[in-house]
């Protein structure tokens, strides 16, 4: 198994924040970098466990492929779904332009 980078860089923090769509100030980059480094340092302990022959567990469910009858049921009315929208246009959520 490859060893994870032990020292997280400021550039990586900026990259991760961008991936997560989190605005972040230069001061926060430094602060989060140091905090995340410390957390990741403790998480390195994961490698103490020998998992070479162990399958991964994504969820603990006993049941597989839970099905229901394919029938029409009442759903949330559009007005109820839209009433929390910060901005809307008729029966649509209104967003900023995706491209300038």
């Amino acid at each position, binding site marked *: 198994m490859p060893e994870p980078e032990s020292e997280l860089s400021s550039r990586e923090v900026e990259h991760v924040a961008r991936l997560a769509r*989190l605005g*972040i100030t230069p001061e926060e980059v430094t602060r989060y970098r140091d905090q995340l480094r410390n957390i990741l340092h403790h998480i390195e302990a994961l490698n103490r466990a020998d998992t070479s022959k*162990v399958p991964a567990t994504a969820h603990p469910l006993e049941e597989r492929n839970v099905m229901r009858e394919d029938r029409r049921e009442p759903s*949330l009315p559009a007005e109820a779904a839209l009433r*929390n929208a910060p901005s809307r246009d008729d029966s649509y959520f209104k967003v900023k332009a995706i491209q300038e």
Partner: protein
Amino acid sequence: MKLYQRTIRELHQMLIDREISSVELTDAVLNQIDLVGDKTKAYLLVTRELALRQAQAADERLRAKRDVRPLTGIPIALKDVLCVRDVASTAGSKILGGFTPPYSATVVERLEGEGAVFLGKTNCDEFAMGSSNENSGYWPVHNPWSLDRVPGGSSGGSAAAVASGEAIAALGSDTGGSIRQPAALTGIVGMKPTYGRVSRYGLIAFASSLDQIGPMTRDVADGALLLQAIAGNDPRDSTSSSRPVPDYLATLTDGVKGMRLGVPKEYFVAGMEPAVEQSIRDAIRLLEQQGASIEEVSLPHSDVALPAYYIIAPAEASSNLARYDGTRYGFQAGGGRNLIEEYMLTRQQGFGAEVKRRIMLGTYALSSGYYDAYYLQAQKVRTLIIEDFKKAFEKVDALLGATSPTAAFELGAKTQDPVAMYLNDIITIPANLGNVCGISVPCGLVDGLPIGLQVIAPGFGEEVALRVAYAFEAATEFHRARSPLMGAAA
């Protein structure tokens, strides 16, 4: 004794005997909220009018003796991660400010069906991420036993409400200890059911493979009653189990005689307060005197549960919290020049520091190049933890240990050190990863602060955990201790 100091079962008897009405009871609890709410800050929202309306409806039901259930007319608090139709629900986050859900959580509907009374939404760490309630996006909660101490978290508002007489019982949610740890730190009973036992529909998600809703109560019997009301399959949550729900009260008082109880040696962790360890050892001896056989067992991968959790939970959270983009509900920053910039501003201003930390940690662990080393490895460790429990439960019926290595700490003591904060959950996290259930029951006071005994039982063995906890409670007086705040106003 004041009405707000009593248990569900005592009050149920008084209600059906017509000794009191639900409106009187609800008034008494709302009055206590008025008296001490500024001290505990347990609620984000008190739904006074809704509560009195529900209390009147419950009184109708009681008067007509129509479908009277154990929770009919009982005032209950709901952690703010639970959606209640048309009632502001924020998960303790600014990013959900102003959000009123168009539907209710299944557990909320179940309690409505029982005729329960909703007092309001209790404060919590933002999106249930925290162990002290200091990560609330609004304000911290204070422990009713000592106001300069934390109540634990993340269900700290629910815990403080029950411990201060601001609710008769409450619902919380537990992803890594968020019901059991605050229950321990406030001297009440809190149970995390097995994943799948209680529907998560309408629970604002933190980590979807770990989250469970559970009861927070004054004693074990109340916990059994409340669990009974919320457990069971729900077609709206495909992860809810179709296993039948046992009658938890039927076996509650069967005692521990002849039971085999295991003590995981790894649960006496470094950093545990000596007085906590002593109380746990005393509790184990007491259960032995009650007729249980005690043996030491090993859960060898306990030391890697915490690191695995701090990959898996943030990874799931980073994905779950992607939906908060200021488009469909909640806070929108405004001022972004385009959509992406608007997302970034909204999330920058709407999320608190701990939530951002975990989103970044989770995003990092899932990102290209690190997935195998972190996320996949953590999922494999999760398998090892499940196997540890399976092996232990071949030998014993239930496991005993502390809930938290320490009693409640002072506000501010750990806020500068995320890792120190994470260590609070070191003995509660394995039960979430291992797909088992756990309950915390009061087992003593250390310098006037409560601590909890944790009983862990196999998956879908809630009746076993409840039975052991009840046997301990029945032989002790710890659960009768009331916080100064609950007593002072008496």
